[in-house]
């Protein structure tokens, strides 16, 4: 029996395997030292980087919900200068590809960070965060209007030559239309989905648990939404789709891969089981061997 080919090709570059860790859940790649083996990861998608440091939202920033959680971190990050001086050397030591999540309030913010990443050899590619529901400016606004997303992606494409992955929001009417806009402007891959807008209310305080009201819902609760989005998007575009949303087992990952994803990201499940990516990868291998698949692309097209 030949081992299946688990590599993932994006814009002429290759990820060693399809199991990455999602932005915002894995810091800048060193926080889980001692708890997980980064050598087994397909990619680390970093915490979002914005030009200026961001303190993030006031607490509480988290609330547990059935089979999920709501977060409103607010893109807290040290900013581009501190990223370059402190975080790049962590990414250089990572034994797997590092993909930097890029965010901003205005288009110039994205361009500034993308331009800086062009110069950093240890950055494999960037993921454009146009789908964060937890900030007042930018964030999701770039990912909900196809024309706005098209011009942003086009502008970033002009300053960034390595792989550009656009992270899509599920909080839209027609995710296929948004996906096509990103593809036509030069995106190399799409990741979907970011969190769904959600709210939890403290009935005794008669206030939302999260001070800003809404946050982003993640976890197994959103998995069916993510699988459906990947299925729609993969039919709408020709570029690879990276699936995420509520994956906590190999079977969950297989749902995404069979729905059209070429790779997946594990997010919220890392909090519970930091070593789950390696076990998911092992499970994908077993499935492919037992079911007779030699490469990930062969999983596509059944429905």
């Amino acid at each position, binding site marked *: 029996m030949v081992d299946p080919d688990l590599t993932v090709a994006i814009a002429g570059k290759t990820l060693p395997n399809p199991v990455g860790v999602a932005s915002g859940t894995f*810091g800048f790649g060193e*926080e889980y*030292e001692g708890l997980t083996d980064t050598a087994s990861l397909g990619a680390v998608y970093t915490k979002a980087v914005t030009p200026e440091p961001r303190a993030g939202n006031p607490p*509480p920033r*988290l609330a*547990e919900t059935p089979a999920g959680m709501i*977060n409103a971190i607010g893109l*807290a990050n040290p900013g581009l200068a501190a990223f370059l001086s402190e975080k790049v050397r962590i990414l250089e030591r990572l034994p797997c590809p590092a993909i930097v999540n890029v965010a901003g309030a205005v288009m110039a913010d994205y361009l500034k960070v993308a331009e800086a990443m062009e110069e950093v050899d240890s950055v494999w590619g960037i993921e454009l965060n146009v789908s964060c529901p937890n900030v007042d400016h930018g964030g999701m606004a770039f990912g909900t209007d196809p024309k706005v997303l098209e011009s942003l992606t086009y502008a970033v494409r002009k300053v960034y030559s390595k792989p550009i992955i656009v992270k899509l929001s599920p909080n839209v009417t027609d995710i296929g239309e948004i996906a096509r806009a990103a593809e036509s402007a030069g995106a190399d891959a799409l990741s979907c989905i970011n969190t769904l807008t959600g709210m939890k209310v403290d009935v005794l305080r008669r206030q939302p648990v999260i001070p800003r009201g809404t946050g982003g819902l993640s976890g*197994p609760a959103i998995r069916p939404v993510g699988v459906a989005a990947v299925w729609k998007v993969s039919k709408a575009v020709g570029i690879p789709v990276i699936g995420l949303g509520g994956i906590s087992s190999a079977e969950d990952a297989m749902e995404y891969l069979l729905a059209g994803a070429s790779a997946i990201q594990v997010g919220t499940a890392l909090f*519970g089981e930091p070593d789950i990516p390696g076990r998911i990868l092992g499970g994908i291998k077993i499935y492919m061997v037992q079911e007779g698949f030699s490469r990930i692309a062969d999983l596509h097209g059944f429905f």
Partner: protein
Amino acid sequence: MNSGSPHKRGKARILDQRIIAEGYREMKLSYSSDSNGRPRVRPSSGQFFTILPHHYPLSIMRRPFAYSDSDENGFSFIYEIRGPATRDLANLDDGSPVDWIGPLGSTFPEAPENSRPVLVAGGIGVGPILYLARELAEAGAESLVVLGARNVGLVPRLEWPETAEVRICTDDGSHGIHGTVLDGLSNTNVTNAAFYTCGPHPMMAAVHRFAVDTDRPCWVSMEEMMACGVGACQGCAIPVKDEDDLSRPAYKQACVEGPIFDSRELIW
């Protein structure tokens, strides 16, 4: 994987748990006997661990708890039944497995020389304070422990070291001193006190103000919702003073920069 990081994920089994006050339990666990069972370093007072909920992933977030004791064979903690996950915990049989990550976070710092540790606790804050009192006793240091509770039913039944002078205060006067923990500190010479506190936010804020008024050091153990527990998710933000720009919000992470903070660092 086998790195310099002090924490790890491991398994333990529940030895026993007992009711120490209305709605409060003390759980004792022993590390599993295989090679993955024990932590890399012995947890110290102030530190915490997280456990995977019994119904994971239907309940997705690990729950953080402060150690109330620890030795080579296992550890203890005190918890309050607050919701479904802690209710599940209370219903687990002795011998049940528990999936932990620890030890996490910062420790209570040593008191300055010639000072007297004054430990103030309420609610589940009694857990880390009990561990600190035990560590101080091991080191041969005396301490004053002041416990606050709403009424006698909520006063924790615990064994304190002999070197600790324990004062109990109840809001309704049904046990010990009638009043708050500050009433428990009245008529006390605090000129050489070093305050350590863990408990409800208003209680810690009051102890902080008392420490500032008496010009004594004060360390607090902060509680906040956590997801990762290791500094990755930025979920457990604690508002702090930004010395460079007081108009700007600034936060520290309870999990890796705390949970123990110098009270003067925080915005109360």
